[in-house]
């Protein structure tokens, strides 16, 4: 379910907001993503940082449920960078 991106894929995205949810467990990263979405415009991309390995799959499922576009994730040093586009 999770889409693996490369650094090059992410580099061409214009990220409107970076949310650092590292160190928080479920449902912390999801709640941070929810809050961040309300602060960006439709069409903007947010980048969620999470050290919980389940987050990327959880965000993919969440995006499908609420109607945002899950773009994928890229592994960083001890965390994942998860990219979501606000779609509504």
């Amino acid at each position, binding site marked *: 379910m999770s889409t693996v991106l490369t650094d090059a894929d992410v580099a061409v995205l214009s990220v409107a907001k970076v949310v650092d949810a590292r160190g*928080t467990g479920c449902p912390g990263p999801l*709640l941070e993503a929810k809050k961040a979405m309300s602060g960006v415009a439709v069409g903007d991309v947010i980048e969620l940082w999470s050290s919980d390995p389940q987050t990327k799959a959880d965000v993919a499922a969440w995006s499908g449920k609420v109607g945002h576009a899950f773009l994928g994730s890229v592994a960083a040093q001890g965390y994942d960078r998860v990219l979501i586009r606000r779609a509504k």
Partner: protein
Amino acid sequence: MAETQKLVIMVTHGPDEPELASIPFIMAGGALASDVEVVMGFQADACLLMKKGVAETVAAAGYTVLGELLPTIQELGGKLLVCSPCCQRRGLTEADLVDGAEIVAAGRFVAEITSATNTLTY
């Protein structure tokens, strides 16, 4: 446009069972993040979770401390309903509870549950 979904989460475990007390709050957070309306109902020892200062002390290993989740759940619109006879038995009044928690009786619980899309019980 889909209708709003509503999840009622009934909680019966208190501070002595931190894992079973924590999971309902995690599910509530996940539901609220997913634009699902949430009503949490606290019965039996779970009433104690709504006593001021208690959530901050409930921390199961590997779980987020309840005191960190509770404000977010309220901020996102989660309702906190606490069983009236359960409070009476434990000497709790609304003044003892966290701001926003409401003491209710069986009729309100039944109304919330029967109007919900789904109910979870812990």
